[in-house]
């Protein structure tokens, strides 16, 4: 089906519907998500009316919007979904697994169609022919084991007529309206021909169709009024019945009077005698008016607010949520960040003031401090979205994957309402998907294997999220076969990694994050947990997070991910080197201490090592990396302050002049504001207005290692 965009639709020139496309795309996406979720939760044997109605309503909403905004292919597909769902909710058909499959596939197809429209209609439209056919068969009950007879039932469908959408109508044959007689059959399931009737209801402007009696077995006869050519009709019907089964017999060209059959009156109507009915309308329709007062009689007399203030009222009367462009929120966050900095500057500059002389000023500054913090918290919360947006994608993925692998799994989620910064949610989705996939693919055993070791046939995969202090903890847990300590150690030795038998479990599990640890033989031996785990770890570290693993062979495995709540603010430790101040992310700071010159050893190429509790650790001298001379008095003996930072599982000692303190910093992106600087992850503005660089501990560790 070709696309129709409102430019070519019947909408008046004053109404450019394209301004509503984006809202529609988002809304349709949400409806599809919801539909998918509800379909996955459906219990085939005990689907209740409420669930079926909910799913129906999703399809119905998408269809209505798609038809209104001119996305006829989406409207057609969702119309068929709706027909099937309507029969289900009316208990005319019994719910069976193929229906859920077809509906899920159709939801996917609708998504692709919508994505194509969203991209401006570029590229080939995916074919929905087979889907439509299989849904039609399901609707007509042409599936074995469903005895339900097909009752002819009025289907919800848009009436014909020149509506806002004129979807890809076959070009009108010369001569305009034609009256035809169409014979369809012989069909095994004559009810299949009902789909043809629906086409006429579904496609505005196609024309009208009426049943004619037909005594022949398997045959159906219709009277049709249309402007479309025979060829176009056959093409359209081919969705449902083979061309050979359709015979079109031309009747006399309809008189102009017949065209009145498709009048605007079909598009709307008034009930005679109903409250508020316009008198002349009803009179024109020659219907009895039984004293219905007209609208003007009840016009409220109150004074109305002027137009400008009405805008405000209207906004306040909106629903309880609003949609705002992300860049507006980001701008707000940015401004609040600036405010936080200004506030910190004021606080710093007022520190020396006499409390007695400037009592009011200081009280005001204290208020400002509190309000700024509250404001910052509120603004940050705008960007927070619930984890359910990530969790919701898994039931479908697991259903498909479990089907493919022949495994059985129950998916359990906890804490879907836990909120996380939008940008983090987007970035954590891929690593989480990887972990969940791995759990099912390599953790949970096949049903026979589970039964053989006395486990229930269905494995359980649990995904949970919770707030823990300033971070969020996400856990992927399965009751599969877990990992084998011995096998990992063996593999590590083969790869020449430094391991020993007395290593604590935690360190052994961490080995699977080593780059390249995942090789084909590990996949079979160690349940393949290594596949891409180094990438998962790296992605999570890049977000300022950490990953921990716990496993019990034979019982299952747990992967815990900890992430900061937001990337816009972080807890930092400020350190001084010479005249400069640098920020170290507090999450990667392990400890700090003073070292004696004796504990420092210089090795090849001038790199230094420091001895900490008997172990040697590489030293990173910021003065060399950033070429900032240290102050002379800081260089004296005993003045070597080291801050140990950890990243990617390794530790380095950062040599600094002084420790200045710990505080929250507003992270400014250097790449967008300046350019990428090696060893630096961002910048922030300090209380005194100076800029401090935030160090990229991962880069520092890598630098020291190589």
């Amino acid at each position, binding site marked *: 089906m070709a696309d129709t965009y409102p430019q070519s*639709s*019947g*909408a*008046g020139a*004053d*109404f450019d*519907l394209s*301004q*509503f496309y984006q*809202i*529609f795309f*988002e*809304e349709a996406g949400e409806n599809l998500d919801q539909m998918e979720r509800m379909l996955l939760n459906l219990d085939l044997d005990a689907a209740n009316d409420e669930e079926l109605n909910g799913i129906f*309503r999703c399809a*119905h*909403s998408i*269809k*209505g*919007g798609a*038809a*209104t*905004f001119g996305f006829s292919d989406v409207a057609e597909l969702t119309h068929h979904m709706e027909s099937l769902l309507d029969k289900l909710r009316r208990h005319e058909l019994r719910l069976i697994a193929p229906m859920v499959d077809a509906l899920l596939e159709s939801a996917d197809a609708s998504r692709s169609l919508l994505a194509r429209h969203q991209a401006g209609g570029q590229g080939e439209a995916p074919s929905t022919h087979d889907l439509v056919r299989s849904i039609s068969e399901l609707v007509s009950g042409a599936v074995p084991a469903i005895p339900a007879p097909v009752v002819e039932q*009025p289907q*919800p*469908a*848009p*009436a014909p*007529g*020149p*509506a*806002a*959408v004129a979807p890809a109508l076959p070009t009108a044959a010369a001569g305009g309206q034609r009256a035809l007689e169409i014979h369809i059959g012989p069909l095994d399931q004559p009810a299949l021909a009902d789909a043809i009737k629906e086409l006429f209801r579904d496609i*505005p402007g196609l024309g009208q169709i009426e049943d004619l009696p037909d005594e022949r077995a398997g045959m159906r006869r219709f009277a049709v009024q249309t402007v479309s050519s025979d060829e176009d009709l056959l093409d359209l019907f081919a969705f449902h019945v083979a061309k050979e089964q359709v015979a079109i017999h031309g009747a006399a060209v309809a008189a102009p009077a017949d065209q009145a059959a498709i009048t*605007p009156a*079909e*598009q*709307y*109507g*008034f*009930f005679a005698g*109903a*409250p*508020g*009915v*316009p008198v002349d309308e009803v009179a024109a329709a020659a219907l009895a008016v039984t004293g*219905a*007062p007209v*609208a003007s*009689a*009840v*016009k*409220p007399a*109150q004074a*109305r607010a002027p*137009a400008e203030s*009405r805008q405000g009222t*209207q906004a306040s*009367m909106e*629903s309880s949520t609003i*949609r705002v462009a992300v860049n507006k929120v980001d701008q707000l966050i940015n401004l609040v960040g600036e405010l936080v900095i200004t506030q910190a500057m004021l606080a710093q500059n007022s520190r020396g003031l006499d409390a007695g002389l400037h009592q009011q000023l200081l009280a005001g500054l204290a208020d400002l401090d509190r309000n700024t913090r509250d404001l910052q918290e509120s603004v940050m919360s705008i960007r927070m979205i619930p984890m359910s947006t990530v969790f919701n994608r898994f039931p479908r993925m697991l259903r498909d994957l479990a089907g493919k692998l022949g495994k059985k799994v129950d998916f359990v989620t906890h804490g879907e309402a836990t909120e996380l910064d939008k940008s983090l949610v987007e970035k954590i989705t891929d690593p989480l998907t990887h972990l969940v996939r791995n759990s099912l693919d390599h953790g949970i055993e096949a049903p026979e294997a589970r039964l053989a070791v006395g486990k229930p046939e269905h494995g359980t995969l649990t995904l949970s999220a919770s707030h823990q202090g300033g971070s969020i903890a996400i856990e992927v847990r399965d009751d599969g076969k877990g990992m084998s300590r011995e096998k990992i150690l063996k593999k590590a030795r083969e790869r020449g990694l430094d391991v020993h038998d007395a290593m604590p479990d935690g360190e052994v599990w961490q080995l699977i994050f080593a780059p390249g640890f995942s090789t084909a033989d590990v996949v079979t031996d160690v349940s393949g947990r290594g596949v891409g785990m180094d990438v998962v770890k790296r992605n999570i570290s890049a977000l300022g997070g950490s990953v921990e693993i716990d496993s019990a062979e034979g019982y299952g495995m747990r992967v815990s991910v900890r992430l900061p709540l937001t990337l816009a603010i972080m807890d930092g430790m400020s350190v001084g080197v010479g005249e400069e101040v640098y920020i170290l992310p507090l999450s990667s700071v392990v400890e700090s201490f003073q070292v004696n010159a004796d504990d420092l050893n210089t090795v090849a190429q001038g790199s230094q090592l420091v001895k900490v509790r008997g172990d040697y650790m590489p030293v990173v001298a910021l003065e060399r990396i950033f070429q900032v001379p240290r102050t002379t008095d800081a260089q004296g003996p005993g003045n070597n302050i080291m801050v140990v930072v950890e990243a990617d599982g390794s530790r380095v000692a950062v040599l600094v002049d002084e420790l200045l303190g710990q505080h929250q910093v507003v992270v400014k992106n250097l790449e967008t504001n300046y350019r990428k600087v090696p060893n630096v992850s961002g910048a922030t503005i300090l209380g005194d207005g100076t800029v401090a660089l935030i160090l990229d501990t991962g880069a520092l560790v890598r630098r020291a290692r190589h």
Partner: protein
Amino acid sequence: MQSILAVDDSPSMRKMVSFTLTSAGYHVVEAVDGQDALEKAEAHAVDLVLADQNMPRLDGIGLTRKLREHPRYKSTPILILTTESSDQMKQAGRAAGATGWLVKPFDPVRLIEVIQKVIR
């Protein structure tokens, strides 16, 4: 300026209707479903109600029935927006006290045309 209560659970349909009516010089109050519409109708006197038929919580037919029980809305025009122009729907609409129906999808121009027939 006359006031219209536009009730639809679909944000895009609601925005489209609201934009169309606002452009035609009406004041529009939006509601996300029948229940919300009842509250809005209580808080603001409206001259016409345009309600989608199929909505969660309270559908268009249910909303019509409830509004007719309200002294202020005994004879206010209520139009039901529907994709089903079946007799069954019409009977339900008539029984609930609706003024008329308008089939979706509709052309913005048609919408204004129908509204102007009912409120002038």
